[in-house]
């Protein structure tokens, strides 16, 4: 149960966070371990300088299909094979290095940073048209930030641990019930690649 500190949130969010006492059965989200070292503080310093857009939750599209406009996510119907940086990453060497490390595991197909303002929220929704699986990597997660999935509990982002999340089959909602900005990034990968399969589903054969 999460009691939000403000009544600024729509009632659907307030009720969802207050009354949905579900816990995860591991099918909709789980922590994952990336096979390389990185410093979230260094990434955060660069992430704070990215050129975000002016959406309610600011976004910065960093990696995706070559020579296309932003598809919004890694679409289920995508047949793309070539992926490149969508902004000049020269001023952001730590982010560039992180992306290089990801691609060394296997190709990643889409990556965005998201900055949520204090008391911000995302209404319950589902990303049906997107590749179901996405890894979220929090760079800041102030007390009061919650990522909740309908019937599947809250996602454990303590210690800024990355999580693999199924956002296309399960309704989810996010709040930042704090006085600080919250920055996270997420990426899709070619989950059929052996490197990513090993990270996402290590027990599968």
């Amino acid at each position, binding site marked *: *149960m999460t009691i939000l500190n403000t009544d600024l949130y729509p009632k*659907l969010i307030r009720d969802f966070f207050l*009354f949905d006492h579900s816990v995860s059965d591991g099918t909709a989200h789980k922590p994952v371990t990336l096979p390389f070292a990185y410093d979230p503080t260094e990434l955060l310093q660069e992430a704070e300088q990215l050129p975000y857009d002016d959406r309610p939750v600011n976004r910065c599209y960093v990696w995706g299909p070559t020579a296309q406009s932003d598809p919004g996510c890694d679409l289920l119907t995508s047949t793309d094979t070539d992926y490149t940086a969508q902004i000049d990453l020269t001023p952001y060497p730590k982010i560039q290095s992180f992306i290089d490390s990801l691609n060394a595991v296997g190709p990643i197909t889409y990556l965005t940073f998201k900055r949520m303002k204090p008391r911000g929220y995302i209404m319950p929704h589902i990303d049906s048209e997107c590749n179901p699986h996405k890894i979220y990597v929090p760079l800041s997660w102030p007390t009061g930030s919650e990522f909740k999935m309908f019937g599947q509990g809250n996602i454990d982002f303590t210690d800024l641990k990355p999580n693999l999340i199924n956002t296309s089959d399960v309704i989810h909602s996010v709040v930042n019930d704090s006085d600080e900005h919250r920055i996270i990034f997420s990426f899709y990968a070619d989950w059929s690649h052996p490197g990513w399969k090993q990270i996402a589903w290590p027990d599968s054969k």
Partner: protein
Amino acid sequence: MVGGKETAAPQQMSIISVQFTLKTATDYTVLLDGETIVEHSQPTLEFNTPILKDHRMHTLDIRGSVQVESLVLDGIDTEYYTHHGFVSDGARGNSDNNNVRYYFQTPVWKWFLEWKQHDNSKYRLISKAHSGFLPL
């Protein structure tokens, strides 16, 4: 929800507010679970329900020549669910010359998220794309 304390205990009964706005309306009658609540003619109406059993299907009928623009149940805007009413010829929609019926359950937040999750599943979206609108 005002049918009980907001505690972790399961809610068995609820009294909720119902608010709707009509784009066009002549005289109309509102029925809840088949019982007349009010007869009215103004485009916006808000009332509290009698005690409703949770997790049971309830019906809201707006009887008359109406076009429903918004439906807010228990303070929750049901968004495009307004277009998923049942009209008198059995089709789905928000406009009819005789009656528009909505089904819902309490707790509203849980029913609405379940409906929304189902309505937005990728399989249902594929069905919609190939077959047009499919009734639930």
